[in-house]
Every structure is written in C-alpha cells, then in structure tokens.
C-alpha cells in the first residue's frame, strides 16, 4: 500500500458510526394522494426547508441532484445547494449527481468551491452521467459521446481539483494552459471531495476503483446482495491498482420512508414512487418489487423504524459502506410527510444505526 491516493477524500469519522443523509433529485410532481402540484417556487423552498430539518435532526449530509427534464426543478442544482449552504451551518452539502458530462468542469469547480467557502468547508460533489438524456441536446452535446464525455470531463474535473495550475488538452473542451482555477477550498488539499456515481454498470465501478476515487451507488430496488458485487469489484480493483480499499469511502443511496406502522409507510409512499417513476422514466414501479421491501434482504428501506434499522444494518454488514443517503421526497411527497420521516429517522433510526456501526481503527 505504498501508492498514495492523489484524490481528495471526504472526511468520514467511522468511530462515530456510518453517516446518514438525505438526497433530493428535485422532482416537481403532483402529490398522487391529493393531485396537488405546488408551484416551483414553493418546491425549491421546501427542499431548503428539508435541509434545515435534516440538520436539526442530526443527519450528516444533504444532497441535491441535477436534472433538466420535465417534472423537475433542479436544473441549477448548485444554485439550490448554495441556498442550502446559507440556510444551514453544520450538515455536509453534496451534489448528487452533478452531470459532469454536459458541464464545463471549470465552472462546476468554481461554483462548488464557492459553495464550499460560503459553507465553511461542507461541500462535496458526486459526478454522474444522467439516466435520461434530453440534456445532451439541450446543452449542445451528442449522445454518441455519452461515455467519452463523462470520462474526459470527470478526469479534467479531478485534475482541476487536485492541481492549482492546470495544463490540459482534450476533445470536448478548449485546452487549458497554465490555468489557475479559483477560488480554492480552504482545506489542506485545497480541493473538494469528489465521488464517482455508479449506476448499474460493473465497468463503471471498476473505473472508480482503478483510479481510487470514492464510489457513490444509487439503487431503486432488488436484493441488497445484487449490489454487493459492484462494491466488491470496486474494492478489488482499487486494491489491484495499489490503493488501500479501507481508505476508500463507499456511499449508497435509495428510497426510504418511515412510519410507526410498517404498512402505513407502504401505503403512503408507493403511489409517490409508482406515479413519480411514470413521470420521470415513463414506467411505473412494480408493486410486487416494492412490496419486497418488507423483507430485510431488499434494498428498499420502507417500513417501521425498527425494520429500517435492521435493514440498514443488514446492508452495512453486506457493503461495509461509509454513508447511506435516503431519498424520502420522491414523487410529490408533502413537506409535512418529509418532516415526519426526518423526525423518525433522527429519533429512532440514526442513533441505533450509528451505535452498531461504530468502528475503531484496525477493525
């Protein structure tokens, strides 16, 4: 393990247990229970409001993802995150995902770094490729370059993050010659923690491992075991490339909804997921697959507080991940219901999960 990892790592104190946070993709959809669609202005403010609640409940991270498609308000997700930074004071802030493929890494760094300075060093970036692809046309890129755009821009983004002066040549952006990209975060590395978002592809997990960047993995449904292979491959590849997997953070993300009564959670959240997926992806979420969340082995974290604790611990045993990010507001969940979930998460789930996932050095 002589190879020093050149990348900026998020600071995660494992002696306090795994980190738990929230993420929103900023959907702007009718509440399927009432049919009500709140104005975009209110939805945006409610995301900031949810971040404050998350901070008050003692959660570790609040994350917002970028989407340019219909039924979303998170196009300018970094602007939204800057409002989150202003409204909060302790919670870590992260993008998730920033679609680096269709962005200029220089501008993303400038924006994210500015948020980092405004928030006293709380900013992180998760870089991804987008599952829906309307933004390629909107922002002037060709879908034929889907893979190449991501790899080139992600590499440049890391380079800017890790070097005060950058010389760079590539295919999709004008060259940089002795470029100083500022402002710089005020930490020892003068850079931001940057994660690679990994979807369903083993190859993407492998690429994250090859260069030793933190891996962020989102999942919708299915058995937790199915996602283990990607995390294992990531760590194995990192090891083969000279990085110590123990020092490489892994985060997972997925649906979460908590109610005292397990079935209330399913009754309330399912219409949001099913109708929301129809709007976002053109295909509902099979009820059968959602119902499997009642089994501890499924990654869908919906149910009673005790059930969720058991599930997250089961997932932790399997993944040994450092951070879990919950999506609690998908498909038009009202702010009152978001608050109920945050309250239960903070009171009954986080303390238990942290208690059992504390790790002392060398364990």
């Amino acid at each position, binding site marked *: 393990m002589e190879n020093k990892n050149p990348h900026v790592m998020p600071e995660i104190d494992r002696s306090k247990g795994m980190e738990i946070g929230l993420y929103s993709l900023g959907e702007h959809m009718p509440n399927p229970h009432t049919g009500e669609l709140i104005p975009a202005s209110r939805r945006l403010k409610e995301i900031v409001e949810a971040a404050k609640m998350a901070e008050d409940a003692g959660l570790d991270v609040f994350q917002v993802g970028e989407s340019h498609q219909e039924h979303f308000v998170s196009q300018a997700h970094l602007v939204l995150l800057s409002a989150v930074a202003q409204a909060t004071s302790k919670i870590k802030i992260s993008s998730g995902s920033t679609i680096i493929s269709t962005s200029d890494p220089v501008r993303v760094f400038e924006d994210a770094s500015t948020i980092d300075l405004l928030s006293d060093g709380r900013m992180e970036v998760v870089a991804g490729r987008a599952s*829906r*692809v309307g933004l390629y046309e909107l922002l002037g890129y060709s*879908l034929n370059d889907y893979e190449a755009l991501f790899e080139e821009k992600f590499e440049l983004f890391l380079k800017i993050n890790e070097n005060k002066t950058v010389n760079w040549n590539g295919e999709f952006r004008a060259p940089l010659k002795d470029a100083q990209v500022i402002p710089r975060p005020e930490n020892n590395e003068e850079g931001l923690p940057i994660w690679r978002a990994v979807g369903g592809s083993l190859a993407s997990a492998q690429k994250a491992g090859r260069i030793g960047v933190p891996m962020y993995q989102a999942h919708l449904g299915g058995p937790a075991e199915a996602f283990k292979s990607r995390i294992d491959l990531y760590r194995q590849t990192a090891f083969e490339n000279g990085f110590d997997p123990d020092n490489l953070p892994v985060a997972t993300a997925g649906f979460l909804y908590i109610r005292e009564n397990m079935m209330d959670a*399913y*009754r309330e959240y399912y219409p949001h997921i099913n109708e929301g997926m129809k709007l976002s*992806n*053109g295909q509902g979420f099979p009820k*059968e697959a959602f*119902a499997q969340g009642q089994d501890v082995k499924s990654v869908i974290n919906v149910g009673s507080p005790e059930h969720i604790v058991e599930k997250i611990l089961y997932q932790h045993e399997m993944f040994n991940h450092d951070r879990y990010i919950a999506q609690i507001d998908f498909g038009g969940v009202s702010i009152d219901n978001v608050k109920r979930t945050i309250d239960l998460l903070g009171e009954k789930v986080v303390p238990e999960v942290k208690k059992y996932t504390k790790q002392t050095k060398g364990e």
Partner: protein
Amino acid sequence: MNILVLSGSNAGNKTRTATTLLKEKLKAQYSGETINYINLQDVDLPFADGRNYLDYGGDATDVLTTIMDADVIFIGSPIFQASMPAALKNIFDLLPQNALEGKTVSMLITAGSDKHFLIPEYNYKPVLSYLKANIVPRYVFILDTNFIEGELQGDDVHLRLDRLIDDTMVLSETFKEVTAKKEAQFGF
C-alpha cells in the same frame, strides 16, 4: 381497456390488410374500448440507441407511449429471412426493459411459406417473454394464398382471427384478475 393493433412491417400489404381486418373486428365487438392502430409504414422511427423512450421525441415517443399505455397488443408481422422483420425488432429495442409487463400480447403472422410456422415460437416469443409480456399461446398464421384481390379470404382464417380476439381478450381479463388478487395480498 386500452387495445393496440400494431402492424409490424414497413413493406408490403398483407400484414396491413390482416391487421386492418382485425381492427375492424375489434371495433365491432369492443366498441366501448379504446382501440389504437399503428402501422409502421406510417411512422418515421430512428434505430434504437439505448436512451429512455421518452427522450427520442417525434413519432418514436408517440408510438412507444401508445405501446406503453396499452393493456392489450395485437402484433401483426410478416416473416423475413426466417425471423421477425428488422422494423419490428427495432420497436422491441426502442422499448425499455420489462416494457410489456402486465400486458397481454398476441400475434398474427403473415408468411409466404408454411415452413415458417414455428418462427413465432422460436423467434418472437422469447423476445416477448424477455419484455415480460403475457403471451397468448396460440397465434394466427396466415399464408399468402389467403389473400385474394387484396382481401383476406377464407372462412377458416376469419374464424381463427375471431378466436384470436376471444382468446386474447379473455386472457387479458384473467391476467388482470390475477394481478388484482396478487396485489390485494400486499395490503397497501
């Protein structure tokens, strides 16, 4: 009930003639239902490149949305080179995974040779299964000798089409009951 008749060929007349007749029969029998008809000769579709079906725009998103919204799909198709026509395979490629889940799908096949009778079994059904369709086991296989002066003729083929409609609609109702029963067990 949302019924779609999809004529899956970009050339010739026989599949169009057969599917048009089927559509007329459906209209006569199920006048209260929504019946859509798509002929691939009338639309301009790109080759699939893996994106979400909502992201293609134009005819593609219209056609694919109609398919996704259907409860019942009758697929008409000729046989090309002992397999499904590329135009029809492209439709399947354009759709997302599990696109036909919960949908009842049946087939009427037009062909120049009865040597191709089992092609739907070997070539169409596996794809439909992969897309999670509820497949109507029997299909109607129509030879080109049944087309006389541009019309589908012969009592046998008419009776078989009527039966295809009955089989498909009854199966669709039955699958809906099965699904409802299963979902009721979930308790939410």
